[in-house]
């Protein structure tokens, strides 16, 4: 059975939203992770400043992924959330705590330690469980009768733990690039100094993960064999890593972040080459999971109106808060404060 045009449309929307989410929320989660590696108050305050106007909007894309899956691929929604019952719980709590920390830390003195921990741990936990979920997916998810057929702790295995750590490092790399782009002076130097180490660690984890997957999964291996053109993505990914290092050495503002984003795009597409058309490897394909045409078509009208607005809004916010973050960032640029 082939997937219908509407099913492909929705798969594309969800894939795009997922990629946008990973890159956008990835950098602010990564800043949260790096936040926990310094005790200097000035650096911490500057770091939060670099993501303050963006982090919440970035999470919008996660909700679009969730809502899109529920409506367009209810089987995937049910299997995924069943399989990752505990990680999803931790993800929600992580996001809640860092969100609350964002609003309260700014005004709080006596309880600042609590919000600092909330911001760091919330970010790290959210990043880790996302990575672990990807790892568990790469290993394959057992499905029976359109429902998850494994245990609540199947994701606690060496491989998902490895990918979880990998994503924490990857987000930290994105975050370091973002800080380099958005800050000046000591913090910028501090971020540049961390980028090569993070890039090396990410590459190492990723190489181990990919080879273990090809070793473990016959389907991924055969897909890889049939789609030899897919090799371009890892190759571009390695070139992007080189770009990160060059940008760091020459202290270019934008290059490290842009190249890290490109690296994530390549990793995403590499996974796609391995797994397409499976949405839940190796049990549920796009065509299996698609909701009836009447459901896909009904929500289509909403999507063509809303998604461009959300995208425009996102671009608008990034444009308004362009340039380096400074004390009282956004005060002058913010609408209504002129």
């Amino acid at each position: 059975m082939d997937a219908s045009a509407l099913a492909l449309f929705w798969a594309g929307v969800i894939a795009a939203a997922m990629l946008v989410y990973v890159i956008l929320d990835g950098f602010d989660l990564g800043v949260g992770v790096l936040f926990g590696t310094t005790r200097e108050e000035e650096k911490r305050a500057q770091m939060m400043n670099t993501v303050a106007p963006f982090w919440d909007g970035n999470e919008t894309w996660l909700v679009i992924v969730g809502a899109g899956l529920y409506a367009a691929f209810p089987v995937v929604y049910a299997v995924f959330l069943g399989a990752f019952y505990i990680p999803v719980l931790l993800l929600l709590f992580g996001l809640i705590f860092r969100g609350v920390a964002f609003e309260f830390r700014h005004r709080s003195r006596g309880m600042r330690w609590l919000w600092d921990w909330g911001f760091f741990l919330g970010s790290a936990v959210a990043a880790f469980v996302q990575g672990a979920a990807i790892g568990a997916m790469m290993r394959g998810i057992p499905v029976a009768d359109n429902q998850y057929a494994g245990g609540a702790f199947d994701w606690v295995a060496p491989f998902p733990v490895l990918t979880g750590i990998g994503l924490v490092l990857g987000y930290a790399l994105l975050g370091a690039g973002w800080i380099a782009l958005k800050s000046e002076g000591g913090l910028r130097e501090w971020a540049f100094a961390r980028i090569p180490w993070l890039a090396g660690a990410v590459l190492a984890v990723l190489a181990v993960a990919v080879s273990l997957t090809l070793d473990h999964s016959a389907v991924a291996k055969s897909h890889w064999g049939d789609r030899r053109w897919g090799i371009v993505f890892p190759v571009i990914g390695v070139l992007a890593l080189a770009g990160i290092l060059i940008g760091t050495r020459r202290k270019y503002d934008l290059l490290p972040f842009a190249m890290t984003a490109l690296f994530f795009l390549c990793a995403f597409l590499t996974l796609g080459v391995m797994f397409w058309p499976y949405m839940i490897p190796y049990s549920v394909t796009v065509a299996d999971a698609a909701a009836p045409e009447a459901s896909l078509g009904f929500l289509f009208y909403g999507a063509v109106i809303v998604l461009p607005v959300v995208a425009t809004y996102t671009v608008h916010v990034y444009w308004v808060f362009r340039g380096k973050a400074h004390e009282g960032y956004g005060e002058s640029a913010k609408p209504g404060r002129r």
Partner: protein
Amino acid sequence: MDLDPVFLSRVQFAFVVSFHIIFPAFTIGLAAWLATIEGASLATGRAIYRRLFDFWMKIFAVSFGMGVVTGIVMAFQFGTNWGVLAERMGSIQGPLLGYEGFTAFLLEATFFGVMLLGRARVSPRFYFFACCMVALGTMFSSFWILANNSWMQVPLGHEIVDGRIIPRDWVAIVLGPVQMVRWPHMLLAAFLTTGMCVIATGAWYLLRRVHREEGHAMLNWGLGLVAVLVPVQLATGHLVGDYVHRHQPEKFAAIEARWQTEQPAAEVLIAIPDEANERNRFAISVPRLGSFIASGTWDSREVGLESFEPEDRPPVLVPFFAFRIMVGMGLVMLAVSWWGNLLRLRGRLETTRWFLWCGFLSFPTGFIAVLTGWFTAEVGRQPWVVYGLLRTEDAITPSLTGPDVLFSLAAYVAVYCTFIPFGVYYIYKLLRDGPKGEAQAIPGATANRPLAFADEAGTATGGRSGGRG
């Protein structure tokens, strides 16, 4: 004790949804109230309305933020704990909830930002327009939630092909007769919830002899609105009862604690239903009134729970008492608002302190009515999750074990009990301090971070006092 994942998941859902609903119920009414006083401000130019607006705006921002955070948790509950429901009914519920999410995004990305940040940037007329659009947006959000729930109460507009639920008629699903009475019922409940809070706040200020002018305005507006809306709500509630009577006779019998089929039927005013022995203890009932309430005649035959197989009957205690508490709250609102208007007409509102105490203490009536109304609707639908199509016990995610759900439930309770008190305390502190000045945002705040706008609330964290330094 054996841990039952179905029971624990129901408790968990009830817990997170109950904590969620109080915020949107308040927010929907507040958005409408803000649009109303902004309109009054535009029409009359009186400064008092602007002060009221700026004050309630801060409360609105905090409670909107709390609603969004607790709402995101809700979006995942269907998949994590009710996987079979999500998978089997996702073809209909997925798009309905998807539209809810889209509505909320549109709101946040457009007019909500204007409302929070744009006072100085746009013309007063456009600002008023934005306020109206935000009010409409919150109502549309609730529209999709109610459409989803109404479909779970009385599924229609679908067909079953090879065991799959296929939507056939979206107009029937979205604008069905049940939805068209339940949505207004929910909207009015939200308006009344906010109205009672506005009344209570005004009464509080007058009792403390602070913010006298604002307190008067809040009482006048609140008492007037509630006095008009409660009778309308009673009428809508009756229409909701009609659909239950027609489409969910088991629920109707459970609400009435009617064990045997009767003709003519008595109305049990109050009793202690004894589910084990299928009878009522200490019942006070009125002969024939049950027939009249249910069917509008004094001698109609009304079915009792005995007509249904035991496995198809809902529990009786919760719907019976929840319904009576809801109606009781409605009557309290009616009494407070009409009495208050009477005092106002005689010019004795401010001096009648016992009434001000009544008004102040009735602030939770709306919230209690909303919660008990939902308990009636949801518990009364049991043992079905989608009435007639899917039983609750069959809807659970099959891989879940009792300990998994016990863990998540304990975690939700712990997390909610940590951060919801902060939010509620913020709101309390804002209300206590009263109207002081325009809301100030912290740096980097955008429209999707409403909590960042309730500036003075920051002191609740034990930090600096007053506004931003």
